[in-house]
């Protein structure tokens, strides 16, 4: 990432109000090409609003959002069309391909990528939550877009499925690199996946702090850098005392 390369997505001085309620106040950040940025914050801090501003679904009251023309969004749940099979849903993500044969082979590749080849003709309601999220990822990755916006994509899954989906996402991004902005309330998820975690404050949401991680993905949730980042974020959110005790004890154990 050379400083000369313009960011793929950037927000400058963005404030958003719903009537009298100020949801977000003076938010500025940018996401560079190929970067994985996570946004965490207490519930009601305007995380989803921020993502909707990034996607262009909402226009900011004040400030400017520069975004690429096309992007794909991955939703919390049920973003798949229930009236289409898994294969048809993924195929819809490949609409930009005009060549039918190429489209078919891309569809097969994507299905294999998320290991759902045998489920092409199943309907979403016949799959588990984790499988549905994998289809969503496959559909989003099918686009000719670089930027993926994810709105708490794994929050409706149970804990173990969530852990699995994090690894799955890290793996998919190795095969199909994308720039990702992930909104989540799951701090561990943010620390395990992101290059940079932006911590938002209570409403009106502001960027309170930024935590950078450099360990290569896939990461383990118990890896020291991840644990340190979780501690840092929890402290920023006022949920943990800023005591080095935990870190010291980990260091001692590791040495």
């Amino acid at each position, binding site marked *: 990432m050379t400083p000369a390369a313009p960011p793929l997505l950037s927000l400058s001085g963005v404030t958003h109000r719903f009537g009298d309620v100020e949801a977000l106040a003076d938010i500025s950040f940018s996401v560079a090409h190929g970067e994985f940025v996570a946004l965490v914050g207490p519930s009601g801090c305007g995380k989803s609003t921020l993502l909707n501003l990034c996607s262009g679904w909402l226009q900011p009251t004040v400030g400017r959002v520069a975004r690429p023309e096309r992007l794909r969004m991955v*939703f919390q749940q049920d973003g798949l069309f229930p009236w289409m099979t898994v294969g048809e849903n993924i195929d819809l993500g490949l609409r930009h391909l005009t060549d039918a044969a190429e489209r078919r082979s891309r569809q097969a590749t994507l299905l294999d990528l998320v290991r759902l080849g045998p489920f092409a003709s199943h309907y979403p309601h016949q799959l588990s939550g984790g499988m549905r999220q994998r289809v969503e990822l496959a559909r989003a990755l099918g686009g000719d877009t670089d930027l993926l916006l994810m709105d708490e994509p794994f929050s409706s899954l149970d804990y173990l499925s969530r852990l699995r989906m994090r690894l799955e996402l890290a793996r998919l991004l190795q095969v199909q690199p994308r720039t990702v902005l992930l909104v989540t309330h799951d701090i561990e998820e943010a620390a395990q996946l992101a290059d940079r975690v932006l911590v938002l404050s209570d409403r009106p949401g502001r960027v309170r702090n930024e935590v950078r991680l450099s360990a290569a993905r896939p990461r383990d949730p118990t890896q020291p850098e991840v644990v340190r980042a979780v501690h840092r974020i929890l402290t920023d959110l006022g949920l943990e005392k800023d005591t080095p005790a935990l870190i010291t004890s980990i260091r001692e154990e590791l040495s």
Partner: protein
Amino acid sequence: MQAPSRPPTAHLIALVGPAVIVGIWALVASLHVFPESLFPHPSDVVRGLISELGSGRLVRDAIASLFRVSAGFLLSVLVGVPIGLLVGHSVRLREALLPTVNFFRSLSPLAWIPFAILWLGIGDPPAIFLIFMAAVFPIVLSTSAAVANIPSVYFRVGRDLGLDGLDLLRQVTLPAIAPQVITALRVTAGLSWLVVVAAEMLAGTDGLGFAVWDARNGLRIDLLAAAMTVIGLIGVAIDRLLVRLMALPSVRWGYDR
């Protein structure tokens, strides 16, 4: 996730109800509880049914009624679904039109019979008009409600995927409302079948409703009961036909929750 297949004999259980009713009916008729001129014996009705079917009259009446219902119902769908789509997409239009739609929906279509005859005479036109008045308002109402309730996430995904205009309608809006619209069609088709009988009784010279009226005027209570039996059976058949739509794989999701 599929209904377990039932043994073929399982359908026979549905015949228990009719068997019991016909049994009690035959018993009451044989005991002459009521005068024979007011209460036909089932065997007379079966004989009447066979002779009317043999002469072809009942078949012609059934075809006449089915034609009117098909025409009126199809017209209601062609007019009602597009209006429902428009109204469902716009809060303004809903606020402006739904009270009126509700007024007409609450107005018994039978109240239109005098006007139907005054304006359209007798025969097919008044019957089709009455069926239309009975079916179109519920269709508008359910279609618009279904559209208004489509989760916005589907439109957002559609936009992300570059769907707009007719593509959006075909790939998102219509399939999203299909389960609810099919339910509404089932209800309104039943309603249409009720209305056609009444319409033909007063504004017809043929059709099953007219057969009922004609049998009553000729004091042929055996034919009266025979016509009623046919009306009921065809009504059930229409419903069975529309229920099949609910088994389409692309609408199953709407009923499985």
